[in-house]
């Protein structure tokens, strides 16, 4: 996977490009600090970091319209921030505060942001794949041309929900874009040990009569270009697209994963293709950003995330009466004797 693509005339304006870099840096920083807070046990439960995969979310979500929808799995901080979620809300959620993006009820794996058309944060592997098709079904049903983009990992390729949904999405030409973030690992299981083939475009594209496109997920503008094409198809009523974004996760599966299954070398080599570093140097090459501006940007983001943490830490704990709130629209009647 080379970068030739990005040697072609850039497909984004300088402002957009810098905005994308900014978002990737924001996600990276958000998660580095989250890792710390997790170690300090201020964040609980399972916490899955996105570091190394930022270009997939930022590049693809970067070309969507405001009225499009985004849905993903439990490794969701990146997608939420890429969709414009305020890091304050995200961080407050991590700390389990009612000021959080899910009022402290969802946690790291269950981010939601209705205003941004961000439909979660779903932690049962594969379970959100049908939801995405349902969201797309609704657009079609209403005669609208907005689309739904759905992210999941290579491990989710093995869930039955994907199979059932892909057949219907293809049969009914639903305006949905499925992006498998192939980081080559399903937790500790390498791709070749959980999937009969390592070419997922066969399993997700050919197998369902959808275009299956392989893309370097660490090349943000390639990611954007391919997603844009998929959006055009979807909006034109030509149906779903399957995108295989090859990428790599720098950290363990979750905060509790020692990553014994990986050599230091492998990890180091991967870092050489850090999507942020790649994009920084590209933008520098283009003369779209210089060292100084870059430093300022890093600094700005540090501050932004520290403010988010401060906001989150100072936010009040949820009160007992919130426990029974939002179980249902109708008043929830606890069946407790």
């Amino acid at each position, binding site marked *: 996977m080379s970068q030739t693509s990005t040697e072609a005339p850039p497909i984004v304006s300088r402002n957009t490009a810098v905005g994308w870099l900014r978002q990737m840096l924001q996600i990276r920083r958000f998660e580095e600090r989250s890792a710390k807070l997790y170690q300090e046990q201020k964040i609980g439960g399972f916490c899955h970091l996105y570091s190394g995969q930022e270009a997939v979310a930022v590049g693809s979500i970067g070309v969507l319209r405001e009225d499009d929808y985004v849905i993903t799995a439990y490794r969701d901080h990146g997608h939420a921030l890429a969709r414009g979620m305020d890091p304050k809300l995200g961080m407050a959620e991590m700390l389990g505060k009612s000021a959080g993006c899910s009022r402290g009820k969802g946690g790291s794996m269950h981010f939601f942001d209705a205003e941004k058309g961000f439909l979660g944060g779903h932690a049962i592997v594969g379970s959100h794949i049908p939801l995405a098709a349902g969201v797309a079904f609704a657009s079609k049903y209403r005669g609208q041309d907005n689309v739904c983009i759905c992210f999941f990992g290579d491990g989710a390729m093995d869930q039955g929900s994907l199979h*059932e*949904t892909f057949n219907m999405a293809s049969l009914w030409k639903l305006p949905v874009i499925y992006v498998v973030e192939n980081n080559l690992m399903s937790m500790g299981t390498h791709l070749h040990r959980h999937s009969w083939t390592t070419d997922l475009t066969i399993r997700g594209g050919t197998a369902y009569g959808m275009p299956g496109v392989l893309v370097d997920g660490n090349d943000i503008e390639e990611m954007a270009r391919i997603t844009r094409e998929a959006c055009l198809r979807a909006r034109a009523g030509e149906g779903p697209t399957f995108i295989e974004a090859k990428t790599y996760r720098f950290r363990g599966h979750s905060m509790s994963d020692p990553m014994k299954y990986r050599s230091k070398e492998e990890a180091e080599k991967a870092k050489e293709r850090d999507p942020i570093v790649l994009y920084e140097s590209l933008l520098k090459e283009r003369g779209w950003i210089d060292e100084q501006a870059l430093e300022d940007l890093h600094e700005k983001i540090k501050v932004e995330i520290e403010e988010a943490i401060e906001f989150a830490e100072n936010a009040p704990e949820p009160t007992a009466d919130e426990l029974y709130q939002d179980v249902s629209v109708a008043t929830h009647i606890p069946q407790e004797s």
Partner: protein
Amino acid sequence: MAMSTYREALRQAMDEEMERDDAVFLMGEEVAEYNGAYKVSQGLLDKYGPRRIIDSPISEEGFAGIGIGAAMVGLRPIIEFMTYSFSLVAFDQLVNNAANVRYMSGGQFTVPIVFRGNSGIAGALGATHSHRPEALYAHIPGLTVMMPATPADAKGMLKAAIRSDDPVIFIEHENLLGEKGEVPDDVDYLVPIGKADVKRTGSDVTIITYSRSLVTSLQAAEQLAAEGIECEVIDLRTIRPLDLDTILESVVKTHRAVIVEENWPYCGVGAGVADRIYHKVFDELDAPIKRVTSLDVPVPYAKSLERLVIPSVEKVVAQVKDVCYRS
């Protein structure tokens, strides 16, 4: 008011709500061109077309999830399970997504969806096709579980379910589809969710039941009346949330209760209801609550065996006499 079958009443409910609100659609196996495996959706394709009456592949997990996704962005899907036995392959979607999305999103997303289809020990269908899954769903906070026993309730309850902004597990009974009864034609006829109904008044014993077992219970009540025992028969209608007030009001009057259900006995609906009655009015009870359930075995094919599994009038009569210390 006009006479209709339970099946027609269900269709009327869907028809009226689809006319009223374009956001309502019906999806499931054979609901459109086949007019429904049990003919509940008969004629709806002709009237509403393939945009709103949608035949699906045999992909319950998939189309249950498609319904949930569509509901999250404001549509009001009716998802038909050909029978509720087939909801088990979609179980995770109902229990994890439909039930939790609103709570996990802090109230940002709601799931106004109805999952409907018939269930029950319907006649020599064997173990895989005779499930009564109500207890499995009633256990889950976030879900509403409704089970109509009469044509009028079938219509009023389904209309209420479709208008509800929360996910509803709506379970019909295959053997009730042909039952006839008076059904209101008022387009706003709704049976409130969470309200039980006293289908027969009596002062000696309270029979608590739902779905097809109501028929069995009413027949038993007839017989018992002839023998001088007056049963009050309560049709739960909504299994979750339970209308405890209506139950307790009656039990406090009769001091005796028998629960009749087609569910399995252990950790089922009857046990759940009994536990709550004891907890609230233990001292009001003159006898332990008796229960008539399906027997604790997988459902056998042979009719001669199946007959023994389900609640019968005789069993109900016997248990009622038992709580009255008569024989």
